[in-house]
């Protein structure tokens, strides 16, 4: 939603012309802000800020502030300052009107749903979900190992580059590597990953001559369609049609070609878009069993999971539904080398541990977590600090004064009073030089 908030005012006002966007925005607000909007829905005069402060209890004041700030940021509230009555807030009239309309009469989607007597067989919800997940997994897989490029999805390579930016880093000659944020990305749940990709997609819209506001409005609208229903795509504009093709590659929609016109069927991924990030509706079951001897068994058929595990573990063998691997010092050093931290690995293991193990406390054996942390600290035994080295002081007094000065500034790292040498942090170097100048005069 930060995306929406960052849009310029005119575009934002235009967005609010669409009832569904108003609705989606409302859903994305913090609870208290939702309540304010609802409360002020039928109040046409500005409400003084002091009065609104009375709505909350004393300990809710910070939440109140957050809510109001958010509403102003999204231009749902407009602030009116008056010398006599102080500040007061009123709802954005377009937003208010649309929401009133929505609440009283509901909304009708601008797409016509497919008639039930149509000959095309609709995929069942189950099929649709597997389709969506398969498509999404394919996409992720392609994302992380673009080097071994099997062309699985139809996403153009330039598009892929955009998504990969920030997640992968090109290092020397050994091909792209996952960065720290890339690993974090893989750890996120599907909904969060989806939002990340969508955000990248939208922020690149301008390069493709597409208005970001149009794109956002279309995506938000899409999330109000009913999962598993087919909608006619002849009412879509060309831009929307193109977007739809990209979304189909991501598994958000399934396209179906009829005799005369084509349909699109939103999947669960699409309809969950407007659900706030906090509650991911489908938490996946874990699949990893970690043993005290550093061996790890992952019950998974997915190639993607295998790739993720490969990031920090040595895959020993793979059975149709089981991946056996071991965490070794080498595999972990490899991971640390790529900027992955031990905490990330441990949280990943905890989040994905098999339901049987998840009941145990702790779900990951303690000796394993400890060892992972120890190996990481092994690498960090040496800490680098930029510093300057001084010697050949003219006298003991000058040396002593210099030491005191450096200590005062908190920059003294090392001193050798016998041979009159000292090392000072480079941040203090300038002050040190000035000080020595004055001393030598």
């Amino acid at each position, binding site marked *: 939603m930060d995306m929406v908030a960052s849009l310029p005012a005119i575009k934002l006002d235009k967005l609010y012309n669409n009832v569904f966007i108003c*609705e989606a925005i*409302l*859903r994305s607000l913090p*609870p*208290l802000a*939702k*309540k304010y909007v*609802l*409360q002020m*829905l*039928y109040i046409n005069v500005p409400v003084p800020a002091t009065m609104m402060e*009375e*709505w*909350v*209890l004393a*300990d*809710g004041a910070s*939440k*109140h502030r957050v809510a109001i700030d958010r509403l102003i940021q999204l231009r749902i509230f407009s602030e009116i300052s008056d010398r006599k009555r102080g500040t007061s807030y009123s709802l954005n009239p377009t937003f208010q009107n649309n*929401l009133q309309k*929505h*609440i*009283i*009469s*509901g909304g*009708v*989607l601008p797409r016509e*749903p497919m008639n*039930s007597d149509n000959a095309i067989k609709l995929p069942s919800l189950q099929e649709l979900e597997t389709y969506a997940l398969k498509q999404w997994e394919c996409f992720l897989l392609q994302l992380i190992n673009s080097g071994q490029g099997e062309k699985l999805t139809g996403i153009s390579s330039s598009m892929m580059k955009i998504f990969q930016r920030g997640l992968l880093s090109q290092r020397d000659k050994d091909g792209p590597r996952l960065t720290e944020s890339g690993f974090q990305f893989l750890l996120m749940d599907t909904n969060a990953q989806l939002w990340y990709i969508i955000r990248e997609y939208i922020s690149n819209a301008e390069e493709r001559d597409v208005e970001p506001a149009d794109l956002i409005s279309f995506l938000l609208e899409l999330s109000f369609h*009913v999962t598993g*229903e087919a909608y006619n795509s002849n009412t879509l504009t060309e831009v929307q049609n193109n977007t739809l093709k990209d979304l189909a590659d991501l598994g958000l929609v399934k396209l179906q070609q009829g005799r005369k016109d084509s349909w699109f069927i939103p999947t669960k991924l699409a309809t969950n878009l*407007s*659900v*706030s990030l*906090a*509650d991911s*509706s489908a*938490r996946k079951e874990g699949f990893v069993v970690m043993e005290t001897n550093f061996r790890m068994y992952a019950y998974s058929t997915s190639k993607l999971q295998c790739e993720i595990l490969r990031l920090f573990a040595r895959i020993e063998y793979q059975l149709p539904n089981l991946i056996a691997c071991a965490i070794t010092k080498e595999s972990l050093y490899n991971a640390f080398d790529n900027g992955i931290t031990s905490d990330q690995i441990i949280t990943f293991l905890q989040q994905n541990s098999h339901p049987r193990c998840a009941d145990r406390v702790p779900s990951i054996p303690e000796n394993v977590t400890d060892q992972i942390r120890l190996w990481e600290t092994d690498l960090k035994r040496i800490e680098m600090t930029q510093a300057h080295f001084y010697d050949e002081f003219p006298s003991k007094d000058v040396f002593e004064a210099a030491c005191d000065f450096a200590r005062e500034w908190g920059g003294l790292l090392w001193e050798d009073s016998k041979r009159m040498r000292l090392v000072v942090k480079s941040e203090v170097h300038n002050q040190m030089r000035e000080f020595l100048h004055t001393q030598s005069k």
Partner: protein
Amino acid sequence: MPSVVSKQYSDDVSLLVLLLDTNPLFWSTTSITFSQFLSHVLAFLNAVLGLNQLNQVVVIATGYSSCDYIYDSSLTSNHGNLESNGTGMPALFGSLLKKLEEFVTKDEELSKEEVSEDRIPSCLLSGSLSMALCYIQRVFRSGHLHPQPRILCLQGSPDGPEQYVAVMNSIFSAQRLMVPIDSCYIGVQNSAFLQQASYITGGVHHTPKQLDGLFQYLTTIFATDLHSRGFVQLPKPIGVDFRASCFCHKKTIDMGYICSVCLSIFCEHHKKCSTCGSVFGQSKLDDASSVSDKKRKAPST
């Protein structure tokens, strides 16, 4: 109930069970018509559903002599679009209105059968409360993540003292389930049942003064999700009417006799408790009955 809490959504997702008073005897006496009232309520429901995609609303109609589920958003939302016919009313609530109509006619027939002249024109609150709790219990047991439930009673009819025991039992089970019962009383008298229900379960009780602005009352007070309740100023109870009904004649009483074993309440002295069967000591009672066995239950208003 830690296991229950851990399964809940972290945010403000709520399940609202609305008990709608459809007692015809009450609605013939009010300042606003039932259809006006209904339009306020439907807009409110729409607003609640709009607040979060995962919000759920269940409506239970409370009639004169029966009650029934008339709307469940989790069942209808999936094919709601197909029914949209552009009549201006949201498609979702088409089924609600249809079911409500059916319910009212059925309720009318039922109430004709039992002819009792002296019954107070109350609605079957105990029945609908139990239905609401059953529904919530089912949600709790469904195993998956579930929204935070709460009950909202929209009632106008006066209390029926004969339902006292049943209503109190429902209230206590709601308390055990940690389900707050909000109550919005739109009638003229005060409802002791609803006051007690909200007081015991930690819900909000409010009596709107102007019924024209019912929607505003509903959104301001009763749309607040449980998560926000911690820091929002809500109306506090002015006083709770704790009066009870006696078990023998179902009359609301200020003073009465209480069985020392099972705490049943009677308006006059009995030799034996009709609930638990314990025999009251007679010799003592004759002498000093007014002191030992009589307890005063005073309304704190």
